[in-house]
């Protein structure tokens, strides 16, 4: 069952992104920023946890989940370190996503011969 709900949640987020790509003139970069920002806003309103409750990884893995991780990190940082946490918390919260992206990107560059 968690697999199904994750599939539905993640799939619908991707459908939304695909509609933005197909129906608007926004570039892929615009679309990505839009989804990170949307995730952050929804998280700030406190609704993103409801989505994670239902969809699990289907909600955390897509880009909106990255926005949520940023906001969550900032709120945690604010609680623990006060004003300083406002600046450090975001990256701390998103460390997982950023580090995986860097390591995976590096590994792909080492293992494969980029031709594009």
């Amino acid at each position, binding site marked *: 069952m968690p697999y199904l709900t994750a599939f539905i949640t993640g799939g619908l987020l991707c459908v939304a992104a695909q509609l933005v*790509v*197909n129906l608007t*003139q926004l*570039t*892929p970069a615009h679309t990505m920023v839009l989804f990170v920002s949307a995730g952050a806003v929804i998280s700030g309103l406190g609704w993103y946890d409801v989505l994670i409750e239902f969809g699990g990884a289907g909600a955390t893995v897509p880009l909106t989940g990255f926005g949520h991780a940023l906001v969550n990190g900032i709120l945690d940082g604010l609680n623990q370190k006060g004003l300083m946490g406002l600046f450090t918390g975001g990256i701390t919260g998103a460390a997982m996503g950023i580090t995986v992206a860097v390591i995976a990107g590096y590994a792909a560059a080492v293992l494969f011969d*980029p*031709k*594009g």
Partner: protein
Amino acid sequence: MQTLGDPPTPNTLWFSSEPRLISCGSVVGPKEGAGPLGDHFDHVCSDERLGERSWEQAERRLLMAAIDHCLVRAKLKPEDVQVLLAGDLMDQIVTSGYAARHHNAPFFGLYGACSTFSEALLLGSVLVDGGYRKTALCATASHHNAAERQFRAPTEFGAQRPPLSQWTVTGAGACLLGAEPVVKDEPCIVVESGTIGRVVDYDVADPYDLGSAMAPAAADTVLAHLRDVQRSPEYYDLILTGDLGRVGRDLALELAGGQGVQVDGERWQDGGVLIYDRSQNVRAGGSGCACSACVFCGYVWRLMRSRNLRRVLVVATGALLSPLISKQGESIPAVAHAVSFKLV
């Protein structure tokens, strides 16, 4: 917006000495070789990289190979070429400039985006017809992967291709024009006239829909040509636009019809539609400098030689955008030049 087909001055040049199309050469990549015209090209490369280090170097090799095929067929040496007119889609047209290092011919590098092929033919005809040059070699090349990197994103980025987008042709075509007299009993093809296109902008700003951006320019030049030479479209066995694709060609036909010139779809073909099969996942069709060049130098030239086509109007179309300027939200101006060939 300009009224299509109504430039204030006649822009058609008559070539009274009728420069001869002596020879053609065409080389394509594997995808083009697998397309409906695959059998007509001089050489189909099995590897997109052509054994080179980069896509840009592969594109250069394509251009050089097409020139070689053209010269070998004409039994001429590189030093017999009195002027080389070449262009491509890379920044600073490096493919042509670097390829020209290997030829001692005086060189003009041209940029008219995908209209470069007929731009080169037109200027080559002027130089030969004017008696300034005895031979003029006109060549263009493009490479899908190099063009993706230049205009959109490297192919490895894996960007999605929207439904109206087109697939840049990997290939090159070369034509040798010369002042040679017509030989009796041989199928001789000559350039009889050409129309210089003007820049037309119908406010299409989507860089993934170049067919729609170029269609008005194609219609404008075809209509202006027909007006200047006082002919109906039926005079031509084939009107070949360069790379409008399925969307753009239908729009161009509609635009011409709107100005009272009905051309039937069989007579007006498009290189971007002809070169790939729908099953090849190319969305709206082919595009690129090499699209018109390969289709003409490979397919149409053979049909003319075998006397299956006698009068052909080649109208290569170019979208004059750059990645920078389209990111700034500007619309896409386009240009098309027409060159009229006839079999004598």
